């Protein structure tokens, strides 16, 4: 199952390596990872998407992350109401003949054009991973020349539908 996990970490050199090294050592599979500063100086936040087999493995993952000295907080926010965003840059081959067609398709995604040449347009699209997948699938028949994604960054929403049970052991 796919899980979205956020960790608050002390921003020391090597902390990213520590976390990814741990995931590798314990045989967890990372789909995406994003890291950046937070509102507090010296504190960074990592968001990653992982594929875990079952609840037991998930519990292990959370506990092992929590065990790292530089990790302050670990949250599995998958089941919470949350905002999840990712940014992708997609270079699409667009001959002048299909330009209008492409633009009309891109519009509902609110993708923006960030670079343009005679036959290639680079779009920037943001949203949750499903939306980005959908956008890429739509562009694929035209020819995706190059593609890069930032990985997911996420927040829980201020208002939650109901309390989600936390692992009482943590």
């Amino acid at each position, binding site marked *: 199952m796919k899980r979205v996990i956020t960790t608050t970490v002390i921003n020391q050199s090597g902390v990213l390596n520590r976390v990814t090294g741990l995931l590798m050592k314990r045989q967890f599979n990372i789909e995406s990872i994003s890291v950046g500063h937070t509102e507090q100086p010296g504190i960074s936040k990592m968001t990653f998407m992982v594929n875990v087999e079952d609840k037991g493995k998930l519990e*292990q993952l959370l506990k092992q992350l929590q*065990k790292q000295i*530089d990790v302050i907080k670990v949250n599995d926010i998958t089941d919470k109401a949350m905002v999840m965003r990712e940014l992708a840059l997609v270079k699409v081959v667009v001959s002048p003949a299909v330009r209008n067609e492409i633009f009309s398709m891109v519009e509902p995604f609110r993708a923006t054009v960030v670079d343009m040449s005679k036959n290639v347009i680079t779009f920037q699209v943001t949203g949750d991973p499903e939306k980005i997948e959908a956008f890429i699938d739509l562009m694929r028949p035209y020819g995706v020349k190059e593609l890069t994604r930032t990985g997911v960054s996420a927040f829980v929403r201020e208002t939650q539908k109901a309390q989600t049970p936390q692992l009482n052991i943590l």
Partner: protein
Amino acid sequence: MGVNLQVREEVKQQLTASGADVLIQSLKSQGVEIIFGYPGGAVLPIYDALHKNPIRHILARHEQGAIHAAEGYARVSGKPGVVLATSGPGATNLVTGIADAMLDSLPLVIFTGQVATSVIGTDAFQEADIIGITQPITKHNYQVKKVADLPRIIKEAFYIASTGRPGPVLVDIPKNIASELFSSNKKEEAVHLPGYQPTTKPNFLQIQKAAQLLSQAKKPLILAGAGILAAKGTDELKAFSEQHQIPITNTLLGLGSIAGEYELFLGMAGMHGTYTANTAICNCDVLLNIGARFDDRLTGNLAHFAPNAQVIHIDIDPAEIGKNVPTAIPIVADAKEALLQLLNQSFESPDTTDWLAKLSADKMEYPLQYHVKGREGILPQQAVELIHRLTEGNAVITTDVGQHQMWAAQYYRFNNPHNWVTSGGLGTMGFGFPAAIGAQLAKPEELVISIVGDAGFQMTLQELSLLQELRLPVKVVILNNQSLGMVRQWQETFYEGRYSQSLIPVQPDFVKLAGAYDIKGYKVETMEEAEAVFAAAFNSDEPVLIDCRVLQLESVYPMVAPGKGLNEMIGVKGE
């Protein structure tokens, strides 16, 4: 001008201490009495500071010897072992010991030199990325980037190594940081680690639940691990077992947490555990695990492990709970604190009369056994029993890994805690002998016996120099079967007796070898010789090495084959 000069003068006065000076001073304020180390280029400033402001330094003859000695010291004293080595090869030679300490939860603080910050990352002479290398095998590690951080980092390193679940912490110090002068008159700060706050007090509700479950049990069993030793909770363990008449079994590393002769002790469980202990695990209805991590050598095939039991697991490391075995009642706590709370609960004792009667019958019917009849020479089990008899179970015993380790674990019944020093998790050959040196330094008055195999001993025998130099009265008993005994046993059992590379008939003359180091050496080949030589050696205040020739083809029984359940023991009658 005058004012400026005055300012410069003041600055000069404050900058009297180098990073290395501060390191040594900090070690002293941490109460460090012994450093196990080996000098080299990148740690020259540190060794110079040590020369000016001495702490007892044990110069091992190989860094691996130094770190295993530090592990032995830490195991018997409970205090962090301190190791110092140079950059590059000095640091990489420590890796085995670091991994060993990590798996067996031993508190170590390891200082490694590093090339100067200006050349880190350029593949400089004797540069190795020891931070990257040791990240997965340390509890935490640091590279000191600013000399001003050094006092804080040292303090944190000792704190992390010795609290919570103990483990090794490595501090990598670039050479220029060790030489740099700085003002160290900053106020002492308390350790502040927002990401590290181990839980030591148990949750009260969980304790109540555990008490309730135990009081309803018919066949309760305590599995006591090394967590009890780390928490110094052995008295509480015994009191709890006595109060509620609950039998106890041990993990390999938990041996000594309860006296070997205690009435309700069933012996060690696991791959080479006793019939009674393994059967008890299979049949118990409540399994109270205190400070053990359900290692695969203990559990055997998980599908058959404690199939009838509800599990209560007390551990200071939450990540160990539920990792291997589903747990009904998790309790994150220091083992001693949890036991004290359980004792305070004074719940109704379960009626264990029938259960204890059955276990006691098992003990009578299936004791650990071996067959002497018609066999000439010394059986290794006999040698261990002789050591036990002569020392009355009071000696400190260290071992490597393998057959001799299992025989020691089976037949040496400890009277006291903190006397058992063995490499459990990592299973390191060459651990036992240097560990005995560390143990002897920690307990100078005690009899320390290193029971080792002939192959493992040859991996770190260079430390005989330390016995020669320090005249440490360590007794080395080599159970010499001229083979890699456990490998040979597995080849016999699982590979149709194809002894691929496991027989080592060519070996040094160990008696002469001892002589070369100015140590008394003896070779014994019969039990009569062994009686006399062991007794004399154990009464001597000098180091002694004994080459004890044992039967080559003897195997360790009982045995649970890998992948099998604890209910599928072979050799319960000793063959």
